[in-house]
């Protein structure tokens, strides 16, 4: 199972990096989303993988899983969700302002001096 999770994180990261390096804003946003998925999974497994054991103290439990990474992931998900929403709005705004969806905008004469 460790191998599978590691592969999933690796593939997500590779895909995210590839997409984040593209020239249009939409693939870049998708790439950032994939990267945030990868890092959320990564944070989660940093508490080690365990099946069917509770994170909170109970009398019946013989072993526990680490609850802290779960709380961290929750925070990270909320933050990355907000950031993704923001970057989508910004991408739409830049599409409206620049007239195209290239991350650098198309060159215009007056920008050359900037």
């Amino acid at each position, binding site marked *: 199972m460790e191998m599978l999770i590691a592969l999933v994180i690796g593939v997500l990261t590779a895909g995210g990096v590839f997409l984040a390096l593209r020239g249009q804003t939409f693939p870049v946003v998708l790439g950032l989303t994939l990267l945030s998925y990868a890092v959320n999974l990564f944070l989660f497994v940093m508490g080690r993988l365990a099946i069917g054991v509770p994170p909170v103290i109970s009398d019946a439990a013989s072993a526990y899983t680490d609850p802290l990474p779960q709380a961290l992931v929750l*925070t990270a998900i909320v933050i990355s969700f907000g950031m993704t929403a923001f970057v989508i709005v910004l991408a739409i705004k830049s599409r409206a302002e620049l007239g195209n969806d290239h991350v650098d905008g198309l060159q215009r004469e007056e920008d050359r001096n900037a």
Partner: protein
Amino acid sequence: MNGFMHLPILPVVLPLIAGIVLLALRNAPLRLQRGVSLAAALALIPLAVSLLQSVSDGSHLVYALGNWEAPYGIVLVADRLTAWMLLTTSLLAAFALLYAVGAPSGGTSSHSTKPASGQVAGYPQPSPQMGEGANARPTPTYDRDGRHFHVLFQLQLFGLNGAFLTGDLFNLFVFFEILLLASYGLLLHGGGRLRVKAGLHYVVINLVGSTLFLFAVGTLYGVAGTLNMADLAVKLAATPADNVALVRSAGLLLFGVFALKAALLPLYLWLPAAYAHTSAPVAALFAIMTKVGVYSILRVYSLMFGNDAGAVAGLLDAWLAPLALATLALGMLGAVASTALKQQAAYLMVASIGSLLLAFGLGSTEAIAAGLYYLPHTTFATAALFLLADSIGRARGTLADRFESGPAMPGARVLGGLFFVIAMAIAGMPPLSGFIGKFMLLKAALASPLLPWVWSVVLVTGLVGLIALARSGSLLFYRTHSSHDPAAQTPTNAALAPVVGLLLLVAGLVIWAGPLSDYASATAAQLLQPQLYIGAVLGTTP
């Protein structure tokens, strides 16, 4: 309730509450919003001063949130370094905010002209209404150019103060996100094409940085099983041999993230565009943003990867000073090559990051003290240059702050005098504080094996910076012709007062150079004894 006991958390909570109140007051008269925002920003100054007083005996104020004890709960820790950064931030924020509410917002002034497309700071469109129409409606100011300026400003302060105070690595990430999210809003405030373009780059690169931050934090947690910085320092010092490579790579990844925020050499490319195209008060406030990265490098690597850290000690020894030297050199070259004053100010900021990290990279008590003394100086001086560049741009009308010969500006004597003082401060000429900071740095480098490099780079870049500023000053103020530009605006007192205020702070750094450099030395000595910090947080007396 004992207010003193809760002192460390007040600088975090106050801007948060002010931000929420301002959000509720969004439809209230602007005068009220400004009052609340200014009061909250000004109240941070006495808070920071009293914090400074209570830690100046070398103690650590540890505030356990919810009274959960240290390695399990989240703590805020105030020591000399924290108080120093908080005071710098609060002073800078007060003047940036005064500028935002008082100064006319340049070429974007006329609301009757179509907004958006042409409205870019530094590239104002000539507008027929400008001049006679300006008196009819309330003076346009930066906080009027868009909505929620004050909310974003307060949340930015919330994130900054939190990042300086937190004693927990994950919370550092959270406060970084808060200050970044607020900074995205502030950077784009007022809109405009070039600003959106620069903003998109800034946001994307910082999101990638945040992802890397989480990867590094996750790795450290996976190895050490804790995120409290003091506890991490203890655990990392005892890293088993199998995990040393893992911890070192996580530490270097973290360094990459902080270097990105601080705009160190290969990662500085986002800064000039973003800072040159945002509005002046925001750029002035952002003078402290890069210092958050510098602060994090200093805090994390003195505490967790310091001399006591066993197998993972001295992680940055091979990296920090050479990269800082290269940043300093490249920033100054950028300042010479700049085509506009705001761009030049942005490159000077990159160069100042180089000097700061050079001081911290040398690592001795004297060098760190030099860096700490230099930090508020360069923050205030660069912020003053950004604010003045805005006034100069407005006084030059359609030419804005571009380095082209134009008509003589109204109020050139005052603007030129202020420019001269700021240039002296930034170039590190005596008698201003830049000289003292550089002198301390050069003196501290005497004991370092990098001595020839440090002396040659610092002295040559000082000269290059002087040439760059002299060239822009003579071009802006002397090479003028007698035509008249109707779009030129005389600088108002409200626009010049914050610049003068920041320069008075720079002067204060010279007048009280003795006690302040003593404080910086004591801070550096405290930083090089991480066991004091660890003992204070974990409740074990060293």
